């Protein structure tokens, strides 16, 4: 197991090694020995993200620039690996096998003399492979870069402070007058009150005045009738107050008392115990 761990680490190291090179010389010398103990292979292969990744690794172990792939050697090594992959991780095998086939194709082409005039349009499998490797490598690097970005919960933590007592501010809903009317209309229709003259008869100003008078009257005390009226309101106001008073009497909400004939009239709310 120690061995496996070591190899795993080694593989990761190699996998993470940037492809940076100074004037063609690798910055890191990797061992050329590709021998991996068979029982460590499964662990080793865990380190790879697929055939492109494996191929990149092999190329690096060869100390090669991507553009200088030694196809035959890489192919041989690759075949060794996929033999193991096939045995261990069958579900991955297909992808690795396709790559092996691609490598084999490239190798076979290289062994044949090239005919200059042949199929100009044909995609050169080497160029295609290189393109894919390059592309993959860019994003492999990008993934590593993203991993090093300062990240919440690892490098930075949200700063928060406890709250003081906050004003309880449940904002009030807005109501449109038409909503109110619509609601009223609905309830009246349900109650079938359109025929009821009760609802319709009094002017709203009268009902409003009824509320006003009621709120002025203290149940435990008589108030003089005259004090309900206010001269400034003019004739109309007096009429409204008078109608309101009559309605209140009729609904038995107030009582009117006159102690003696032609004496002062007093009013009080009826809800006296």
């Amino acid at each position: 197991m120690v061995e496996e761990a070591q190899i795993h680490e080694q593989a990761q190291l190699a996998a993470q090694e940037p492809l940076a090179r100074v004037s063609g010389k690798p910055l890191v010398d990797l061992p050329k020995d590709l021998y991996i103990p068979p029982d460590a292979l499964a662990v080793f292969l865990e380190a790879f993200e697929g055939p492109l990744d494996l191929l990149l690794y092999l190329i690096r172990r060869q100390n090669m620039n991507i553009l200088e792939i030694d196809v035959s050697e890489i192919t041989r090594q690759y075949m060794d690996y996929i033999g193991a992959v096939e045995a261990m991780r069958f579900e991955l095998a297909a992808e690795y096998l396709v790559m092996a086939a691609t490598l084999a194709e490239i190798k076979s082409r290289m062994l044949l003399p090239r005919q200059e005039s042949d199929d100009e349009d044909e995609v050169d499998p080497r160029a295609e492979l290189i393109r894919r490797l390059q592309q993959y490598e860019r994003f492999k690097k990008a993934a590593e870069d993203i991993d090093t970005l300062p990240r919440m919960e690892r490098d930075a933590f949200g700063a928060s402070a406890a709250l003081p007592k906050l004003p309880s501010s449940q904002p009030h809903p807005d109501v449109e007058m038409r909503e109110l009317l619509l609601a009223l209309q609905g309830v009246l229709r349900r109650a079938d009150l359109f025929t009821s003259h009760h609802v319709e008869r009094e002017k709203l100003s009268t009902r409003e005045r009824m509320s006003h008078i009621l709120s002025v009257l203290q149940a435990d005390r008589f108030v003089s009738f005259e004090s309900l009226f206010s001269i400034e309101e003019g004739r109309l106001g007096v009429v409204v107050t008078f109608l309101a008073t009559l309605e209140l009497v009729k609904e038995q909400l107030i009582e009117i008392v006159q102690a003696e004939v032609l004496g002062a009239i007093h009013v009080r709310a009826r809800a006296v115990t």
Partner: protein
Amino acid sequence: MNDEHLSRLQAITEAALLAAGKPLSMDQLRELFNEDERPARQVMEHVLMMLEKACEGRGFELRKVASGYRLQVRAEFAPWVGRLFEEKPQRYSRALLETLALMAYRQPITRGEIEDIRGVTVSSNIIRTLLEREWVRVVGHRDVPGRPAMYATTRQFLDYFNLAGLDELPPLSEVRDLEAIGREIEQNIQGEISFEPAAAPEGEPANDTDQQDSDSDRTFH
């Protein structure tokens, strides 16, 4: 123990308290540090005092509470901070609007009378909401068994709906005329639809309600 070292301890302490977002005890604070660099209790107390001072004039303060030390937003900023947590205003229920309308048109009116007309119970919540909003108030008690409260609308109610007096409310006869329009609109959305008797006889749902909805959506989080 030089000043630079102390400021560093202060910054680490502040960082930890802000990351925790809850009180940390003296022990918890000291255990942030490896044994070999762990400040003595007295040093830590000094550092906390420094931190308390460093928070003067800022948005937060250091508070000692039962379970330790905690950084807390200063109470004086509660009015502003509170807006962050304002809930989106709910819409009033149909039942509430009906109750309010009856209180306006039939005041003074008791809960029982409203229930008689609506044919269903009026929940205490509705009454409480209307009272809290100060749109209605109790103007007396009807002289019947139980002495139920009589409700009437208030000046605030008139102000809210831009009325000089109740008689500026449309008379019931007009409300009845709206029925035809109302019925079809009502089928669409209960209580959320606007209609202008004059402008939109076809019952075209008016846009301004939508506008208002989106306005009231503008709350935080």
